[in-house]
């Protein structure tokens, strides 16, 4: 970004420097301060989650490191082992800062995994619908419409009621709740692309259908897919937290952010707010930052809004 300002000589040599699409996209994206800050926050959250074992004072799920003596300490208290619990501790004596970072690992993994799987499945189905046309398309789109007439949260709730608890089952439930959004997006975009001249040209060159769909049409559908993907991933994270909070999502052995908030809920009425509030803030920052990035991506990637 700061190439031109750092090297005025260089830019003077090549005044007509051609921007690649990615550079243009990057420049436009960072024009928005809010989106830049949101992206930075999200990157920091991911880093914190990934680095959790090395930057937390304790492993909150190693029983040897947790002391019941530390239970329900307010923020800023000193733990039995000597370190300061800046965010306090929960009912079992776990340092909340550590528990939140470990919880983020689980929440982000579930959210991203379900997002990626739903994207791949939805994309494949949407492409098939757009390219096959006729009866197959009619049937697929009827199923998609049908599913979209139920709120995603309700579909996910039905699925966990039917599937039970566990990481794999939650991911499956979220994929089932979300694939239709991707399928609809891909199909709508692919339909527009299919009627363009470059597809006709490719057909004239005798390129196989499969290759046209995946090498030529699909790359042109990526922009809306990325936008839907970010928003849906945020909603997957939030849905998982909701289900876990209700006690029908992840089990206590997989303490995601939602499980932490649920554990703190019982202490809330007695004024021990921090056990629920801090994990909640972490969830909030994650979901809102992804949504803000997605919102801005929509503006940047949508050619109709270009000046």
């Amino acid at each position: 970004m700061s190439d031109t300002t750092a090297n005025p000589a260089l830019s003077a040599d090549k005044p007509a420097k051609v921007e690649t699409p990615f550079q243009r996209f990057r420049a436009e994206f960072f024009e928005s301060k809010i989106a830049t800050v949101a992206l930075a926050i999200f990157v920091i959250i991911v880093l914190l989650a990934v680095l959790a074992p090395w930057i937390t004072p304790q492993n909150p799920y190693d029983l040897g490191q947790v002391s019941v003596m530390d239970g329900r300490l307010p923020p800023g208290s000193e733990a039995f082992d000597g370190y300061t619990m800046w965010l306090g501790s929960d009912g079992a004596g776990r340092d909340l800062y550590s528990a939140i970072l470990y919880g983020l690992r689980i929440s982000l993994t579930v959210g991203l995994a379900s997002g990626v799987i739903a994207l791949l499945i939805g994309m494949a189905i949407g492409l098939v619908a757009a390219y096959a046309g006729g009866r197959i398309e009619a049937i697929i789109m009827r199923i998609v419409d049908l599913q979209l007439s139920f709120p995603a949260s309700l579909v996910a709730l039905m699925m966990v009621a039917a599937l039970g608890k566990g990481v794999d089952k939650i991911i499956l439930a979220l994929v089932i709740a979300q694939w239709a959004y991707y399928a609809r997006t891909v199909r709508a975009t692919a339909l527009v692309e299919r009627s363009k001249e470059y597809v006709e040209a490719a057909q004239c060159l005798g390129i196989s259908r499969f290759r046209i769909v995946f090498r030529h049409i699909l790359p042109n559908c990526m922009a809306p897919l990325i936008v839907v993907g970010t928003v849906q991933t945020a909603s997957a994270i939030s849905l998982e937290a909701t289900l876990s909070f209700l006690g029908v999502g992840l089990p206590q052995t997989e303490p995601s952010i939602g499980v932490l908030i649920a554990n703190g809920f019982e202490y809330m009425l007695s004024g021990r707010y921090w056990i629920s509030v801090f994990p909640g803030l972490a969830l909030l920052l994650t979901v809102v930052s992804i949504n803000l990035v997605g919102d801005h991506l929509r503006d940047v990637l949508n050619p109709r809004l270009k000046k």
Partner: protein
Amino acid sequence: MTVFIIRRLLQAMLVVFMMSVIVFFGVNIVGDPVYMLVSPDADQADIEAAISRLGLDRPILEQYWLFLKGAAQGDLGDSFIFGEPALKLILHHMPATMELAFSALMLAIVIGIPLGLYAGLYPDSRVSKGIMAASIFGFSLPTFWVGLMLIMLFAVELRWVPATGRGDLGSFLGIESSIFTSDGLSHIFLPALNLALLKISLAIRLTRAGVREAMGQDYVKYARAKGLSTRRIILVHVMKNIMIPVVTVMGLEFGSLIGFSVVTETIFAWPGMGKLLIDAILQLDRPVVVAYLMIIVLFFVLINLIIDILYSILDPRVRLQDQGA
């Protein structure tokens, strides 16, 4: 037209049937409810007696057949925990949920439309930008988290309203509801607000978009030219035109309010269907889970059927398109 309605009815029935397969088989392979029901020191004979009493020793296909036969006669099985018919249990909890969803819808309309109107009339003012930013938060904040914050702020810190329960019921025109007593109102305020947040944001955005579009229309210019006061133009002419789509969309959201109420009811211990569902899932009370899910599916399928038919009356193209496919 008749053909269209029959086709849609058949489709709706097919959907309900498919959901019954998914829900029944899904729910019946999870966990073993018997161990939740017999006491821990029960011997093998007790356990087997419980299994055969609940009909769990039969092959699952036979269980499903019995379920279908019962369902056709309006019997969705008896709750394992309460021993009462599941359908009766759900219908008993339904008024509380309806009341909550209805109050939330009213709140969304009463709060959302005026805010949206303001944001549409003065799009560049600071207040409007604040309203729009708040509506983004309304969309992205998880409902349960907002509920927790509401409890913490209004019930624990300020002690203005109680945190949980339904409060006293009042009766008006034969309908029992908490909204007819002051105690009931103080109980319903927080859960209804919590449930309404998402819809308030929606109402704000719809109204704002509608107002901004309407203000540039010829009829507004004409009313101005005629010398009508701005107040009259907005309240009579503009509002009339934007209220129809906004209220329609909000009405259609009623179904999703009932779906979302699962979360709100659990947080505020509101004795509705949603809380019943979560309790039933946790206690492996399969008949209640299956019955709830079937009723919700039926509910949504019905709403969609009605919308489809209404649209096809209003816009014949929908009907033709469907026949062409």
